[in-house]
């Protein structure tokens, strides 16, 4: 950074609205406010813990130990990060068009089932061919599911928030039906599942790590989504349509195709999360797919302000909280819902902080000199 700093000639230049400090100030608003909201949410949760007679200091030190304290806990955290990255994209991409899609859980579940079903047909197929086929099937299932939400929104005016959540419930019922009926492996007695994936179809771990390749896929997906939104005409058109549909239509932008494309792409990412859950974690599709990643993904996307690059650190942080959940239960005698309560407090704090944008002169260089 210091290399690119222009020579400082006087105080007036530093405060100029075109200077680097002004650019930094403008950009930092979107980081500082969510970060402070996160701290406020954690502070509120600390008060909640104190009211329960538990020590917040103990809590956060256990979270640090369980989520980030050792290479083992880092591996646990990063394994949980992979589905969260993809699930958060399912919220962040439609959000560019002003749509609040919260049914990513359904796409995850169906992506996983599609992966398990296709794997059953690929018994003798080598992994180089089979794994991309499974991934394509899962992504397609997710894309159809969430793309349908976008299509219903565009063609019928159906509220996308409610429709996506209803479809998530329908997806879980469909999964239960398929896994306990047509796709059930007769050998799975206690927990109905699809047939276990053949060995060559399993997605392995990164070399030298106990973290599967889904993490890399998730990070690549986040970067690709960022490029799509920030560096292509498609992303630009989506932002215009998200700001004002009428204006976008007047400009001749294909609003319908944008809506369906962005929702379907988000659904494809969530479906991919299901594929990795099956191919790298569970080994077969079963009810464990509905593990709540889709709902944590909503919070991550809002915390990251729907910026795909910001999703990466936020997802790691929340995965760390989830990874330490077991340790919190054992060490502090708190129920497993503690992490849900924490997420709820942070979510409420982040939404309250929306009201603060544009209120601070610090972030608005144009108003620095009028003081």
């Amino acid at each position, binding site marked *: 950074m210091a290399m690119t700093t222009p020579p400082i000639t006087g105080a007036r230049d530093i405060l100029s609205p075109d200077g680097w400090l002004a650019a930094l100030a403008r950009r930092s608003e979107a980081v500082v406010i969510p970060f402070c909201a996160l701290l406020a949410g954690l502070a509120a949760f600390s008060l909640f813990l104190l009211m329960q007679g538990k020590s917040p200091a103990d809590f956060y030190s256990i979270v640090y130990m369980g989520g980030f304290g050792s290479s083992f806990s880092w591996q646990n955290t990063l394994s949980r990060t992979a589905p969260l990255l993809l699930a958060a994209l399912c919220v962040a991409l439609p959000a560019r068009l002003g749509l609040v899609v919260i049914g990513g859980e359904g796409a995850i579940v169906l992506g996983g089932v599609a992966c398990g079903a296709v794997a059953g047909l690929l018994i003798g197929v080598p992994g180089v061919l089979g794994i991309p086929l499974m991934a394509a099937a899962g992504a397609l299932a997710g894309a159809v599911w969430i793309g349908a939400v976008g299509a219903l929104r565009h063609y019928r005016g159906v509220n996308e*928030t409610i429709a996506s959540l209803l479809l998530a419930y329908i997806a879980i019922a469909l999964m239960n039906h398929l896994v306990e009926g047509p796709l059930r492996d007769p050998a799975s007695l206690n927990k109905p599942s699809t047939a276990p994936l053949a060995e060559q179809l399993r997605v392995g771990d990164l070399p030298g790590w106990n973290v599967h390749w889904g993490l890399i896929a998730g990070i690549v997906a986040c970067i690709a989504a960022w490029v799509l939104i920030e560096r292509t005409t498609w992303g630009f058109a989506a932002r215009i349509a998200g700001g004002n549909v009428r204006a976008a239509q007047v400009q001749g932008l294909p609003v319908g195709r944008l809506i369906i494309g962005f929702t379907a792409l988000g659904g494809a990412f969530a479906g991919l999360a299901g594929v990795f859950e099956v191919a790298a974690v569970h080994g077969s599709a079963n009810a464990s797919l509905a593990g709540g990643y889709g709902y944590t993904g909503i919070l991550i996307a809002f915390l990251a302000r729907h910026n795909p690059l910001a999703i990466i650190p936020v997802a790691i942080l929340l995965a760390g909280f989830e990874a330490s959940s077991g340790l919190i239960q054992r060490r502090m005698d708190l129920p497993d*819902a503690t992490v849900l*309560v924490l997420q709820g407090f942070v979510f409420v704090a982040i939404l309250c902080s929306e009201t603060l944008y544009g209120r601070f002169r610090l972030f608005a260089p144009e108003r620095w000199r009028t003081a």
Partner: protein
Amino acid sequence: MESDLGLWAIPIAMLGGAIRVSTPFLFVSLGEVLTERSGRINLGLEGTLVFGAMSGYAVAFLTGNAWAGVGAAAICGALFGLLHGLICSLPRVNDIAVGIALMLLGMGLAFFFGKPFIQPVAPDLPSISFGWWSDLPQVRAALQVNVLFLIGIVAAVALWWMFRATKVGLVIRVVGDSTDAARAMGLSPPLIRTLATAAGGAFAGVGGAYLSLFYPGSWNEGISSGQGLMAVALVIFARWNPIYCFWAAILFGAAGALGPALQSVGVSTGYYLFYAAPYVLTLGVLIATSSPTRAMTGAPGELSITK
């Protein structure tokens, strides 16, 4: 006696199921009508429903009185509604997103505090038997009507009358239809919306208490599976009219009773698909009643969901 009925058992079981299952739909949708008529949408009623179920069950267990549980659930629901209303009164805060956050928070808090109450047995709410005229045990079972269902009917009529004929109802409708008109009349839209959301939350809390105190009649973490959310969709279907809410709730209750009814006569294939019937019905109703071009008839003008 039981074997004589044959397939007639399905409609009888669905009637009974409709009466039993519809009550939470009815209360949540009445609460949502009250909130949405004031121009705001509360998607968090699913969380309020679950927290109402937990708090109602816990208080009923601790006091030994089911009605104390209902009261506690109503108070907790009102507090959640108040929180939603206050947050949404901040400028530039999206009421749909706040609803999602409060849904997750409500469920998290309910699971957190509800852990010790999964095992104990709390007293049930009383019900009245309207099936005394019949010899058939199925009909008698179907017509065991809970008192809360009757209270729900009274509340639906009372709300309808309130919107139609009272000053309070008029004030809520003005605020819901035009913020500017309400301001011009000297009303405070944020205050009225917050109060309407709090009252709506109280209704949803009572609906939750019904779940844990009558049907299914126990507290566990899977007690609600989207009823709160379906009720929000039901309000659109019912065109923001409390009386239509009652009929819609009966319809949704019958759809929800389809799976258990078929199971009771021995149909077991596609069991999970029948359980999806209420969600499919809700979605179908949303698709049929929404429109991309024209505003919905009866919709409050300031409602973000229909704009």
